[in-house]
């Protein structure tokens, strides 16, 4: 699988119409300089040799050098990734907190008003273009109400007055564990709007998945048995049924995390969030292929990893165990 990802990124980065060596050498390079750059970058080698070199480098964690800044893509990513991970994690947690109860109620009171509302909400949330919602939130909460900042991770004053803690790179988390409440408050303030935008899609997805999984389970015999024992509806739904519906929900979460990761690419630039998405946007404009590929490989690998985790969690279910 990993091999496949690398193969695709290799092929796509070799069939591109423009010449990376020319980019590397700069806009005013002489043909000799471009030739030199080409042999330095290894573009003279036959494709299989290039591919082997490429694989070897990636396995060692070397994603190549940015054509724009000439510094290592992996090092640059290290700076930008935590900011994105912070957003994605928070959005996913919120999706769990809101989506599961909503799905639960929806299934419990099927075809009631609350069910119709939550279904409409779930489908609506999935249908909203994140970048548009982001603009709307900025307009309402920054422009008109002034409740939240327009973008960035912390206000300029905070970053000048205090030294920002850097343990995991996730500012909200770092300032929380170091007990730096001033920075924590400021960072939390800044993260609200982006997280709201990003959590919409996962909330919708989790709600729908929980609902449909629960509806299927509620028809099972053991639920009828539990009911006939006179167990409270709360216990039946919240423990017996919910536990068995987590499998599909977790699968949905993984899928939606992949989606959230990519939608940060659209949302980050709006909020000026210094994450991977912003990095990618800059790289796209500059046609900086190693950087684009670096982001792609990183995202695809984390997606793969997430799928693996989901499979492991689902396989903890004794019904799935082989």
């Amino acid at each position: 699988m990993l091999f496949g990802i690398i193969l695709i990124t290799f092929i796509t980065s070799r069939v591109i119409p423009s010449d990376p060596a020319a980019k590397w050498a700069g806009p005013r390079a002489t043909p000799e300089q471009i030739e030199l750059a080409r042999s330095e970058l290894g573009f003279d080698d036959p494709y299989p040799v290039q591919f082997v070199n490429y694989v070897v480098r990636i396995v060692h964690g070397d994603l190549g050098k940015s054509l724009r800044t000439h510094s290592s893509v992996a090092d640059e990513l290290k700076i930008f990734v935590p900011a994105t991970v912070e957003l994605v994690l928070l959005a996913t947690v919120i999706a769990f907190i809101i989506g599961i109860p909503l799905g639960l109620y929806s299934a419990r009171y099927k075809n009631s008003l609350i069910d119709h509302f939550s279904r409409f909400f779930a489908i609506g949330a999935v249908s909203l273009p994140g970048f548009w919602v982001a603009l709307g939130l900025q307009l309402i909460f920054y422009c008109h109400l002034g409740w939240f900042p327009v973008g960035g991770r912390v206000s300029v004053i905070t970053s000048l007055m205090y030294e920002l803690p850097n343990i995991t790179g996730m500012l909200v988390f770092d300032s929380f564990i170091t007990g730096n409440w001033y920075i924590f408050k400021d960072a939390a303030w800044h993260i609200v709007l982006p997280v709201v935008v990003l959590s919409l899609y996962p909330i919708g997805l989790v709600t729908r998945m929980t609902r449909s999984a629960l509806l299927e389970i509620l028809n099972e015999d053991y639920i009828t048995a539990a009911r006939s024992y006179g167990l409270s509806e709360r216990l039946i739904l919240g423990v017996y049924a919910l536990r068995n519906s987590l499998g599909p929900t977790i699968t949905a979460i993984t899928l939606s995390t992949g989606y959230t990761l990519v939608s940060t690419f659209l949302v980050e630039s709006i909020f000026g969030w210094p994450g991977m998405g912003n990095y990618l946007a800059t790289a796209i404009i500059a046609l900086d292929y190693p950087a684009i590929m670096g982001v792609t490989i990183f995202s695809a690998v984390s997606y793969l990893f997430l799928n693996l985790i989901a499979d492991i969690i689902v396989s903890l279910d004794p019904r799935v165990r082989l």
Partner: protein
Amino acid sequence: MINSLMLKKVIEPKIRELRVSMFLLNKNMLTKAAYIAIIILIVIAIFSPLIAPYPGDIYIDNHPKNSLLSPSVEHFFGTDELGRDIFSRVLYGTRISLIASLSTVLIALLIGVTLGAIAGSMGGWIDEVIMRITDIFLSFPPLLLAITIASLLGPSLNNAKAALIIAWWPWYARLLRSQAISIKERQFVKAAEAIGTSQLKIISRHIIPNCISPIIIQASMDMGAVIISLAGLGFLGLGAQPPIAEWGLMVATSRNYFMNAPWYSLFPGFAIFLTVLSFNLVGDGLREILDPKTRKI
């Protein structure tokens, strides 16, 4: 006489089923509203150059004197930075978005269905090869793959479409393969094999027609996803290029002005939302109706 009688026997249950489905579809008010909305959107898409009050504004006309006017009787949705009527452009955007996403979904579907059906019904090494390739594509989040490919192909609407097709076909291939594997074992396929029907005919006449309903559900949900992705690519500057009246691109351009001219972002974005919502609602309704597990009369 006998022929028409037989025909009647074959067709009648199908018509009845269709009518039951239509009844169920109409019973759910949300679904009904959604498919009516889609019909209206299609009508708008077809007649947009005729309905639009300022057809010239769709492309190159501009009136710098009228730039960023707020919504009024002359300009229902206001005007953009070049003084173009946003209402006309949003209407025309319907055509661009619908055609682009429909062709994307159809091509992806065609590739995916063909490969998936071949893989599922042939089995063996052909299945192995096709599914390994599919798996590689599936290991990317679809929009990520589309962004990467679109950024490498260079920005244009057609390249964005190509990128989305590359990202989307594997989902159909996987769907169809799993369906084909179960259908392959059914009696009527075995019977067709026994009387010496060719593989090609079995796949095209027996297997694919029996996978129609999951494909329709998937396709209607994907229409929404593709429209939103196309708009997203447009927003990143990887999709349609100015002066095309594409919704995502319009929202992207409006970023520079939306603090003073909120209507500029509001209407194109709302058009995206409404279209995607309609397709998702219809897809959801269809799934409930066509899936025997949840089908209730």
